[in-house]
């Protein structure tokens, strides 16, 4: 019996059906499949790469809020944006894990493994031939319930898109997958079905990007450092963490749920969201919403991190004052792949940051070419959020909006770096 199957049996008391992973293991060891998903780390840009895609580590606070914003906007097909991006990105990422001699069971097994490995939960593809799929755990369900409470509707749009991408990668078919039962609404598990006989749908898009933006060769800065905070030790510790899904396919680290999300997914959904809102004359509102989600993320995620045993074990002994906490937070965010950003100026009321290779700006250039306006909504919001967390007073709600952040220059506009200024709001 394979390792995965033993784990599944322990949890379910032996009732869980044999997964595609354990079926795929009959010809291929678990370790050999897992080795195809090994993370490669690029220290000069802090980028993490899994199966040919740069992945960004974000937590359930950000992912759930981003989903709510995009799906909740009136007049646009937010669910369609999320689903289409997921199917395009994961069809491509999964295909990159395939070997030339892989049979179909091995490919389904790799799909289950990829979902779990990245921290999205557990999907069971054992009944995929009959069009039935179940999921026993989900990053997005956990995130929604923990951050936003019980839902009145199914929340696994991302997984629908992921599964559409999986079917496309394994069989070449463009299908529609619908969630029929969701744990966020009290279901025992999430259930999905491959819709047959529905309206014909457009083929799954092949990812199209322009030339990869080169990594900057010239050093940036000068940057401010804290004498008390060993940023490299923090980065080494984060990079050394086993940032892969546990037996539930989740990554409970720093007291939050993390997931390795392809940068292309974030970029595609944010670009498509802003463009759809632009068509309604609401582009500025779209950017404000994305910045706001990130501002909440900056506060909530790092508030969780600052109360975690990981913080207590390594970082708290370095922190002598609030500025040290800020430098430690920036180091963690770099290790998570957010932006290769560094402090250039800092007072308790102001903060200036420079990002050299942020995934939003670089991604925009690769997807759309040169932009007219700065595009780094996530870094803009997080910059304000971390200042509110470190220097604010009161509850999260009371701190929100007490610092304002602007992106003055952006790589997406042709600048050499992205520069952010944060000021306390009087």
């Amino acid at each position, binding site marked *: 019996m394979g390792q995965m199957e033993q784990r599944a049996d322990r949890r379910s008391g032996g009732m869980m059906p044999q997964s595609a992973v354990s079926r795929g293991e009959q010809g291929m060891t678990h370790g050999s499949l897992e080795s195809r998903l090994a993370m490669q780390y690029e220290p000069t840009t802090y980028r993490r790469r899994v199966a040919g895609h740069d992945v960004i580590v974000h937590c359930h606070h950000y992912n759930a809020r981003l989903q709510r914003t995009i799906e909740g906007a009136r007049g646009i097909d937010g669910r369609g944006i999320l689903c289409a991006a997921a199917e395009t990105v994961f069809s491509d990422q999964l295909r990159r894990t395939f070997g030339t001699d892989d049979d179909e069971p091995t490919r389904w097994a790799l799909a289950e493994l990829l979902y779990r490995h990245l921290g999205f939960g557990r999907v069971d593809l054992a009944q995929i031939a009959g069009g039935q799929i179940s999921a026993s755990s989900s990053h997005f369900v*956990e995130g929604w*319930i923990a951050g936003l409470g019980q839902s009145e509707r199914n929340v696994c749009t991302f997984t629908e898109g992921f599964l559409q991408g999986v079917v496309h990668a394994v069989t070449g078919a463009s299908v529609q997958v619908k969630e029929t039962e969701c744990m966020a609404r009290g279901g025992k598990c999430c259930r999905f079905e491959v819709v047959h006989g529905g309206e014909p749908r457009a083929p799954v898009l092949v990812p199209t990007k322009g030339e990869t933006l080169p990594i900057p060769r010239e050093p940036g800065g000068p940057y401010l450092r804290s004498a008390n905070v060993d940023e490299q030790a923090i980065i080494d510790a984060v990079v050394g963490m086993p940032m892969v899904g546990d037996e539930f396919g989740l990554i409970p680290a720093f007291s939050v749920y993390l997931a390795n999300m392809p940068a292309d997914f974030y970029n595609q959904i944010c670009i498509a969201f802003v463009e759809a809102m632009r068509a309604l004359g609401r582009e500025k509102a779209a950017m404000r919403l994305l910045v706001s989600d990130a501002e909440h993320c900056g506060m909530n995620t790092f508030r*969780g991190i600052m109360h975690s045993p990981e913080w*207590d*074990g390594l970082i708290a002994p370095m922190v002598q004052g609030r500025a040290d906490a800020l430098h430690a937070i920036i180091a963690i965010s770099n290790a998570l792949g957010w932006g290769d950003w560094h402090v250039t100026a800092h007072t308790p009321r102001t903060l200036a940051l420079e990002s050299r290779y942020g995934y939003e700006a670089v991604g925009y250039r690769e997807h759309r070419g040169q932009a007219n306006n700065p595009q780094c909504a996530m870094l803009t919001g997080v910059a304000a959020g971390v200042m509110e967390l470190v220097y604010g007073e009161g509850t999260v709600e009371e701190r929100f909006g007490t610092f304002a952040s602007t992106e003055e220059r952006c790589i997406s506009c042709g600048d050499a770096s992205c520069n952010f200024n944060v000021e306390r709001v009087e």
Partner: protein
Amino acid sequence: MRREKVPACVHPETYKYYLEREDVMATWNRLAERYGQPRRHAGFRTMEIGAPRFILRSTLLGNPITVLRRRDCTPSDILELHALLGYSG
């Protein structure tokens, strides 16, 4: 012993349990016997036990213990854990 609520976590009922110094070793021994041996993470100087319904995590000093409940964690799971921790509310 006492406990403090931890904000912005994976579960709204997340607490740090502060053990009496003299009880730390014995408590971890009881937890290991019931839920399995702790794993150590040298980089962050932490250790944890991954039980089916929650994760027990602390620094290598063993105190306080953060209890991260999974969503299917039940009141009886917590009652049993409290008995092992020696926490009576």
